[in-house]
């Protein structure tokens, strides 16, 4: 994989965040926070009238972007993000990033990246850094 500092990571888009998938995620997480499934609770907290996407789902979109670029989920070594604002049902999102360093550690080529998840207006909702291996680190069975 030919990678250089400054390379942009291919964008990975979510056309419209799904309220239904938030409900599935709430059940999978056993997450009692009603802002993810109960619009009345969201209104009561003064947060608008659309459910709030789970932070892990927002992270997952960026992880998908990294896997699509690097060759698989087994490439991820480190992933650190700060949550800057809420994502609501119906929002359009775009995950992207840029390579900030290419190095070798224990014989494995790694790429350090700045990553970001932005809303339709280009405002960041999540920002951080990630490190991915530039070659396979696990062997799949044939």
């Amino acid at each position, binding site marked *: 994989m030919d990678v250089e500092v400054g390379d942009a990571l291919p964008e990975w888009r979510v056309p419209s965040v799904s309220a239904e998938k938030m409900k599935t995620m709430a059940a*999978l997480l056993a997450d009692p*926070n009603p802002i993810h499934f109960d619009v009345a*609770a969201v209104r009561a907290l003064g947060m608008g009238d659309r459910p709030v996407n789970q932070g892990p789902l927002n*992270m*997952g*979109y960026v*992880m998908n972007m990294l896997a699509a670029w690097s060759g698989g*989920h087994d490439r*991820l070594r480190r992933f650190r993000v*700060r949550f800057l604002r809420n994502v609501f049902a119906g929002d359009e999102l775009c995950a992207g990033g840029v390579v900030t360093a290419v190095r070798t550690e224990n014989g494995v080529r790694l790429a350090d990246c700045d990553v970001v998840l932005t809303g339709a207006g280009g405002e960041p909702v999540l920002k951080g850094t990630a490190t991915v291996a530039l070659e396979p680190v696990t062997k799949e069975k044939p």
Partner: protein
Amino acid sequence: MSERTTPGPPPADPREQVGRRFPGGVFTVEPWRAWLVADTVLDEPGGEVAHPLFVWLAATGAMGVTWDELFAWFGATADDGPMFGEHETTVHRPLRVGATYRVSGEITGADRKTGRSTGPFDVVGYRLRLHDAADGVHVADCWNSIIFPRRG
């Protein structure tokens, strides 16, 4: 996971909880759960390597307390609207679908702050470690912070 507990009043100082250890537990990346998580996060289901989101899912799913119980350690409930602050996943060996992981960890930090627009809030950090139950290898770490609004 254990049953819910009734939250108490906010602790006078959230730092009193720093160092408190999670009971811990075990988490298996069941194929059905791997499929549903992949579908929910708009990824392609299938394959042997679990989505890296499972580091967070396994860590928090087997930390040994419910979210309500963790919130109660800091005198909060889900209705207070606790929010994600920061997250860090470190993968030493990719998680596998079908594998079982042991989880352990502790509260690493707690601070009370006041924002101009948000008012008072607490920032709580916690770290969880994953070990493969089959061979004992330390495979991943998960560090997070939660923001607890303190609306009075």
